């Protein structure tokens, strides 16, 4: 597909697949970490009028959600690359 031949494509495909897998693992790790700040923890502090602390906890959760969203985009991009490289290596 890019003129480097089958071996080169297979190496790139393997590297991209490995990176995609690593990103998927990190995405799951962040999802697990997010469970440490469930809504009831934030609500606990808000109910005690510690609004600022509750806001910061929610802010923390938002950043991790943002990271997951961006990682979802990254995985889509990488998956497209994997598909393209796989098609090229077989075509």
């Amino acid at each position: 597909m890019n003129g480097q031949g089958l071996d080169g494509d297979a190496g790139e495909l393997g590297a991209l697949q490995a990176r995609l897998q690593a990103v998927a693992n990190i995405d799951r790790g962040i999802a697990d970490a997010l469970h440490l700040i469930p809504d009831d923890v934030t609500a606990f502090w808000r109910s005690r009028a510690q609004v600022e602390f509750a806001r910061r906890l929610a802010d923390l959760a938002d950043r991790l959600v943002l990271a997951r969203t961006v990682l979802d985009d990254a995985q889509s991009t990488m998956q497209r690359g994997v598909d393209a490289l796989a098609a090229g290596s077989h075509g």
Partner: protein
Amino acid sequence: MGDITISGGGSTMVGTDGMLESSRRLADLAERLGPLRDGLAFPPPAAGAAAFDASTDLAIAQDAVEQGRALAVRLRDQLHEAAQRYGMIERAAADELERRGALLGYLAGAFAPALLIELLGALPFVASFLLGADLVTGSSARTVELGRRFVADHRGLLRDPRAVELVRQVVSGADDGILGLAGMPYPVARALDDRATGLFGLRGAAGVISALAPGGMLKETPVTVAGASAGAAAAPAGFADLASRIPHSEPGAPQVRIERYDTGGARPSWIVYVGGTIDTGFVPHGEPWDDTSNLRGIAGVDSGSARATREAMAQAGIRPGDTVLPVGYSQGGIVATSLVTSGAVDADGLVTFGSPTGQVPLPAGVHDVAVEHRDDVIVALGGDPLSADDGGLQRVVVRRVSFDGPLPVGESPIQAHLMSNYAATAQQMDASSDPRLLSMRERVTALTGGAPAEVSLWRGDRVEVSVAPADGGGDPSATR
């Protein structure tokens, strides 16, 4: 249901369970996010995959994870600082209260004769007031009835944590009052305070009251012990199980439960549960779990209930050197604590519910979990707890206000002391992930090995003795 707060256990922090739980979660979160952030630092992609490596998105995600990690660290540190400040303020307030309580107690004692004369002088005014009240209500009986009803309707005021604190200070000042009454200069009285020197304090005051009580009041008797029943039970899984196994305070019922665990060692290990006060009279009759034992226990001298418990342990087969976990409620907590302080058992743990034992220093290395409701006036009868400087941090104190909403002024203040309320607190303790509580639960598991228990129940009774004219009674040290 009010949250539990936990203090002590070597920590200078005091925090609500929610605060400590959040702190632990944030520490865990920060620890997890570090490797995830590092994992997103990928090497440059191969040329052929450059269009699909999503470097920009990965960099944004990495930055977001790092910001989240830094925020988690900052919030964790802020919570720690808040808990430390909370602890410092609480200790400073407690020290100040103790100083004021001691001064008030001393002044009350020093000026007691003058105060008595003043009170006698006020009697005509009191009589006039009552006469006026009778005219309004219609009769003396009606006045008395209204007064009785007023007191009954407001008895719950003693459950106000501020009222409980006041009682604590009055009790703590009792020793200073006695020394003031004896004409001791105030600086000397302070220097003798047992919180600092162990020379004369609440324990000394309780001892004086016990010794000076007239007739047969507060005087010890011999006791007898008999096994009541036996059976088997699963090993306790946590504090709620420990609380539920403490014998109920019922006349004629067993006061001691002993569980034997054969864990494969040369000797079995044991859990000894001791119940609370049954007879609230000051003149000892047949029941050793009475106020005579309460006062003697607070005074730090041997009591009928403690002797009966030791005798039950001996009859159950507990030998010196066996590992024992004493667990007690109210007076049972005083007894359980005395088992540890007297060296009667080889204990590395102690669990008490609603016991006035905060002033009792324990041997180093004993893990002590004390559960005290903030609205429990019985706990306040133990006076001020030991300060951090005097080893008070060894005690892990779990506190909670046992009522929800506004103060239940119409309820008996004893509600806060009920074992059923402490059992509810024990359930919260089992749900807590505080390492100090987890540590005690692990100790219980290690002691039992998860094996089923051989259970025996024991009943102690006083041997009623007539007061001999020469020596004031029988030999209370002779347990029969």
